[in-house]
């Protein structure tokens, strides 16, 4: 209990300013408690010593140095701004150069992707072949026994140009090759007879310079000519390669 009172009194003494007087209760306790009295004496002495430290004066040239410092800072700020102008311009040029490089790269990549040179692109372009009219597909399928309908015309062309070279490798090779068509409607198509299998017919030359659609007439042996018509193949951006067979192996269209 007494310890509690001592703590309270000491706290009160601690919080007082030096020139302030403590409460009556605290004074009464101080008269009775020697430890607290000693604490008060030491505390007062300590605070007097600390308080005697007083104020240290700033040097006489404090204002002058401060003005010089402010002037120096403002001038260095201005000069650093002008110094920044160079790097800013340089950074601007660098950014523009990077943009130009990226734009050029993007343009080249886009052009490369639009070229019908890869199998993926050819696979994407096969839906154009799918638009082949139905009756001719049935005719060719019956003759060649090749399952993929979309490759019917290609099979005919391949077999004409390569003779007995058939099989999946040949199909892939054809698929990888750019196609070109020729308009035969004005000159009349070559008639492929029933007795002559499609794969064994002699190759005929195709003028790849013409960009018209491809049409083949097939004779069913009863005097009826079935016509296969392949519409103009588009390659995304509606461009056809003029020299389509320049990438083809030798003697292969």
């Amino acid at each position, binding site marked *: 209990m007494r310890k509690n009172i001592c703590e309270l009194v000491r706290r009160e003494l601690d919080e007082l300013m030096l020139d302030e007087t403590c409460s009556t209760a605290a004074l009464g306790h101080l008269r009775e408690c020697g430890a607290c009295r000693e604490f008060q004496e030491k505390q007062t002495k300590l605070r007097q010593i600390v308080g005697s430290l007083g104020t240290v004066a700033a040097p006489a040239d*404090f*204002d002058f*140095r*401060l003005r010089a410092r402010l002037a120096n800072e403002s001038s260095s700020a201005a000069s650093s701004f002008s110094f920044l102008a160079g790097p800013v311009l340089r950074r601007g040029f660098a950014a523009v150069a990077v943009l130009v490089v990226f734009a050029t790269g993007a343009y080249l990549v886009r052009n490369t992707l639009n070229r019908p040179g890869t199998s993926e692109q050819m696979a994407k372009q096969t839906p154009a072949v799918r638009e082949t009219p139905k009756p001719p597909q049935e005719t060719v399928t019956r003759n060649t026994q090749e399952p993929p309908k979309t490759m019917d015309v290609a099979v005919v062309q391949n077999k004409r140009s390569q003779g007995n070279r058939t099989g999946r490798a040949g199909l892939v090779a054809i698929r990888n090759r750019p196609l070109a068509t020729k308009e035969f409607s004005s000159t009349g198509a070559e008639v492929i007879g029933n007795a002559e299998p499609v794969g064994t017919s002699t190759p005929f030359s195709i003028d790849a310079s013409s960009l018209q659609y491809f049409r083949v007439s097939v004779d069913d042996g009863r005097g009826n000519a079935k016509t296969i018509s392949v519409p103009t193949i588009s390659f995304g951006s509606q461009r056809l390669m003029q020299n389509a067979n320049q990438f083809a192996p030798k003697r292969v269209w």
Partner: protein
Amino acid sequence: MNTLTTIDELGFAPALQQDVLEDTTSDHALLEATRNGDQDAFAELVSRYRNQITSYIYRMTNDYDGAVDLAQETFVRVYRAADRYQRSYAFSTYIYRIATNLAISELRKRKRRKLVSLTGFFQQSDGGEPKEFNPPDARPLQDSDLVDTERRNAVQRAIGTLPEKYRAPLILRDVDGRSYDEIAKILETSEGTVKSRISRARGFLREKMHAYL
């Protein structure tokens, strides 16, 4: 009036309000003039606070040249931030807060650099930061002035060994004579924390200064 509202918000004791009102009003006016490009107004502010700030930082860092540099840095910051200054606090609180932050920052830098006193130091028993060991000179002194000087030096050294969180409130209270409320605002902490830290700081000092008490 704006200033009256500000002073009311600060919650100073009525006896203190009038003094603070006069001071802060003129300080605010000077800073306002500084903001408008009046260099003389800023010079007046500097002349009012240069000694207080230099002294306060010196008590904190125990390095006069460094204290002068930091005091100048304090005024530079006040000048730079004159446009952003808000009158929600007394100017003295504002400038002391800047000075305190700079001083504490300097003390931490020193700690990182591990600047050690040539007199050595020992680790505090409660795991606190290292304390400089400054045994009192027991030789008899010839003159009472010398005694006072020696005592002041001893107490300055002892304050310098206090952890920074105890040092700042002790100096603000016992050297500068500021109120708990103002100290709490300067240090951005509660009044209770300030009281507790001051009490602990005095306890440390009593231990160190027992030869002089």
